[in-house]
């Protein structure tokens, strides 16, 4: 089958927040790009249906999928174990929370669940039999600035190997392959008065693969204050680059991909992210799931000093799908 193109409707978040687009409009926008998959954060678009979706809601969802020729690609879930201010959820409550999310996924036809790295390892172990029973695949998102070699991700890879489960893997976010510093995310600090020379030097050092603590030390020597350091933190929390070859070792555990987009240029190329080699490695490894566009650049225009207007989410997603189609050949 090969890798398929999808869109996470998270990408239209500003349009939806301001109610310029409806839930249905978001799905229509996906189909208009030629993408076939829809990724959903239930708590963005349908929180009141999340715990116990009504038959009407489920029917309407499937009608939309048929009408627009799209398929459910992945459901993004959050284990809110800090639900209460005076305790964490118990192990049993956490597993029940997940099971409820999985019921929702099954009803809407999502094959893949995206979970976050903060989920405790014993809970991941506990949900494996439920995933196998439901026939669902669960992936932990690996997102900048998390390291693939840290104890969290290695613990997850080890759990998958130890249990031999086919129902658990990971979901790399393309922010893991920001070859150049996403200068877009420094805009807010520059507008607040950060020194452009220091901020650009920080970005250059990122591009040169200088470790963050050295970049930090140099910035301080240049006279960096809180604004410049905040800009630096924003760059390093939104971007990572450890080359692309490391992915080969773990490619068999990839169950879904978040096609992160910070900024698309006029030639329909993401400005900072090294898409081409990563897509090639996934193809060579035989990955045949979804790459879903996850446009996040709109946030960089949300500071009051930017003023009105900002991103054209629909256009950014359209351009990214052009890039993916070029890379995937379909």
């Amino acid at each position, binding site marked *: 089958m090969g890798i398929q193109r999808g869109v996470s409707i998270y990408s239209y978040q500003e349009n939806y*927040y301001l109610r310029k687009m409806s839930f249905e409009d978001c799905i229509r926008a996906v189909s208009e790009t030629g993408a076939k998959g829809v990724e959903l954060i239930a708590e963005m678009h349908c929180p009141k249906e999340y715990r116990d979706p009504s038959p009407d809601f489920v029917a309407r969802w499937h009608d939309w999928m048929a009408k627009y020729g799209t398929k459910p690609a992945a459901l993004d879930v959050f284990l*809110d174990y800090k639900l209460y201010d005076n305790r964490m959820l118990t192990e049993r409550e956490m597993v029940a929370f997940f099971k409820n999310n999985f019921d929702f996924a099954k009803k809407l036809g999502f094959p893949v669940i995206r979970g976050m790295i903060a989920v405790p390892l014993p809970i991941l172990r506990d949900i494996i039999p439920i995933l196998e029973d439901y026939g669902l695949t669960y992936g932990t998102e690996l997102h900048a600035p998390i390291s693939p070699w840290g104890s969290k991700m290695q613990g997850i890879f080890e759990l998958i190997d130890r249990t031999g489960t086919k129902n658990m893997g990971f979901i790399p976010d393309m922010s893991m392959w920001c070859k150049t510093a996403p200068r877009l995310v420094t805009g807010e600090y520059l507008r607040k008065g950060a020194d452009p020379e220091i901020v650009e030097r920080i970005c250059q050092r990122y591009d040169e693969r200088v470790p963050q603590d050295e970049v930090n030390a140099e910035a301080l020597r240049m006279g960096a204050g809180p604004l410049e350091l905040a800009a630096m933190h924003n760059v390093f929390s939104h971007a990572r680059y450890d080359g692309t070859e490391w992915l080969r070792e773990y490619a068999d555990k990839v169950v879904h991909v978040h096609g992160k987009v910070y900024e698309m240029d006029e030639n329909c190329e993401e400005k900072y992210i090294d898409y081409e080699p990563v897509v090639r490695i996934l193809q060579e490894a035989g990955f045949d799931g979804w790459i879903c566009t996850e446009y996040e650049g709109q*946030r960089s225009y*949300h500071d009051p000093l930017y003023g009105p207007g900002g991103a054209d989410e629909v256009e950014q997603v359209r351009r990214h799908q052009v890039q993916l189609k070029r890379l995937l050949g379909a």
Partner: protein
Amino acid sequence: MLFEKYMICEDGFGNTYDENGWLTGFQFKLRISYYRALRLSMIEDIQVTVDGKTFPSDKLLFTVEEGTFTLAQMKTMPDLYWDFGEPAVIRVVDPDGLGRGNNPEYRRLRVYLKFRVSYSFTGFSAATEKVLKPTL
């Protein structure tokens, strides 16, 4: 970041009155600074400041589609949501409202919102302000 410039709505700001016409306080409308609907129990604090005067959080009433609640009540409500993009009406109970007598035409409203999310050690917080004209 995260909808900061959109949080405080332009409409729905002004003094509130009871059925006898007595000033009961003031209100404004607030949208969330997050990319999903928030369970009410995860809201830690909302601080409201008008022209430098901060009002106690226990004098706030928070209204969403489901109903009107105090911040303390919301701590017990994990299954009710402040919807993504939903303008919640925040009412401050104060017998002087936005102030009696001659008030400037425009007021500087500052809001600090803090909430708890499992994957963040420090918690999510947003501070936003807008210069607004009361329209109520």
